[in-house]
């Protein structure tokens, strides 16, 4: 009886796999094609290309600044979203998800209308000498808006699922809310927060549409890697392919290093 059931579910697993293969191939092929079509010498040339290096540095710095902003302000916001029972917070949660479903270009136009010279707080910013559009900060801002919802979602779920009994115990032991947050809540939610941060960082690195509209495509100022690849495509297709491959490698490296960091027992394994 038991082995028969086992066989049945094995058959179901096989069928599911066969049905899933088309999607698997579609997802895999682009990356594979990049590896195949880029010659090794071209990859080396791309790596040494000043435009690539400049864009890579810009991508890394802007996404790092974006991540710091997202983590510093997003962590408390996610905690509030998870803990506030009010209907107001439910509404806020819904609105914060908007950038996930909006086309990035629309987000870019929205950013211009908000922070641009003719935007609703553009005059205010100009009065204090801030001109955001087409600047480095515009790149950061576009990445924050596009990437933050991914972190917020993951972090909110993590805070919501944390064992409240443990927080209560920490309170009865006489600890302050701040100490409880840093020594109990954060470590307990570590995995969810890290996963969210990883997703957000990857999304920030790949940001294109909102950056192009709000920050432009100026080498050395606002040209991030995806934009550099887009520009290079016009002058040298093979160089663009090689650059794409390097971006792919960078993303994989990020993924692997954070995965490894996640598994270290020192930070608590569960």
């Amino acid at each position, binding site marked *: 009886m038991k082995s028969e059931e086992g066989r049945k579910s094995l058959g179901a697993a096989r069928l599911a796999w066969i049905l899933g293969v088309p999607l698997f191939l579609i997802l895999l092929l682009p990356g594979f094609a990049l590896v195949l079509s880029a010659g090794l010498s071209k990859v080396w040339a791309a790596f040494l290309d000043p435009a690539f290096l400049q864009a890579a540095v810009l991508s890394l710095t802007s996404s790092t600044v974006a991540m710091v902003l997202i983590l510093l302000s997003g962590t408390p916001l996610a905690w509030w979203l998870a803990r506030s029972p009010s209907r107001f917070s439910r509404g806020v949660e819904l609105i914060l998800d908007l950038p996930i479903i909006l086309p990035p270009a629309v987000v870019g136009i929205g950013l211009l209308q908000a922070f641009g010279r003719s935007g609703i707080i553009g005059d205010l910013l100009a009065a204090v000498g801030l001109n955001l559009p087409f600047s480095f900060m515009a790149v950061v801002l576009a990445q924050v808006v596009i990437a933050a919802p991914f972190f917020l979602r993951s972090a909110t779920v993590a805070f919501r699922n944390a064992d409240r009994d443990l927080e209560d115990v920490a*309170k009865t032991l006489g600890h302050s809310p701040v100490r409880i947050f840093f*020594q109990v809540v954060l470590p307990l939610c570590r995995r969810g927060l890290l996963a969210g941060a990883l997703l957000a960082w990857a999304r920030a690195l790949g940001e294109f549409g909102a950056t192009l509209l709000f920050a432009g495509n100026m080498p050395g100022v606002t040209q991030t890697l995806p934009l550099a690849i887009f520009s290079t495509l016009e002058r040298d297709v093979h160089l663009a392919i090689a650059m794409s491959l390097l971006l792919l490698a960078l993303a994989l490296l990020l993924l692997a290093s954070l995965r490894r960091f996640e598994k270290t027992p020192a930070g608590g394994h*569960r």
Partner: protein
Amino acid sequence: MNNWEVQIECLKGEFHLQVELSGGSRPLALIGANGSGKSTILRGVLGLENPEHAFVRVGERILHDSKASLCVPVEERNLAYLPQGLGLFPHMNVAENILFADRSNTLTLSELVDGEYSTTVENLKIKSLLHRRPEELSAGECQKVALARVMIQKPQMILLDEPASALDILARREVRKVLSEQLSDLGIPSILVTHDFRDVRDLVADIAYLKAGKVEKAGSADDFPGGESDEFLVEFFAQP
């Protein structure tokens, strides 16, 4: 004079909880069907919930007196809480879990092993466990660690909310054994929410039976199983 007294009244929609409890040094077991208000009482005493009316006195200290608008916050009540699963922190090892009970954050591992608390560690036989994580411990060992933490905290009262209810019967027996051996030695009053008659028997606890937010019957275990007609009590004491 009793060691502690608790009066709690609270309204949650249709549910109306109104109880007066008091006790000496013997543990008090709160029994009753789910939703009879057992956990609400514990949380009220701990200060984790704020009932409409409450009077809580432990020893000479009044922790809550709503008539006098006095309500000591949870952090300052110095009561120990052992929830389901005993409340050990999974991201800390045993030593870190125990040292976390030291509010001043000055106690060190070496002091725990060689200093004032060495007998605690020795009596509980947890010295070899100090560097392990809770997930690597048996149920009885977890209970010992939780009690070691209580001893560092030096609370005025211990509140246990079905600490072993998620465990299988053998692990439960292990936990019960540790509790009955240690709890009376501590000499700290305690309230225990339980669904298991064997807890009451082995801890020699007094009993308060709650039904729909009221204390239906209270007394020592000997007062209880005599000619009950209440279905819950018959079933409770029929447990082997």
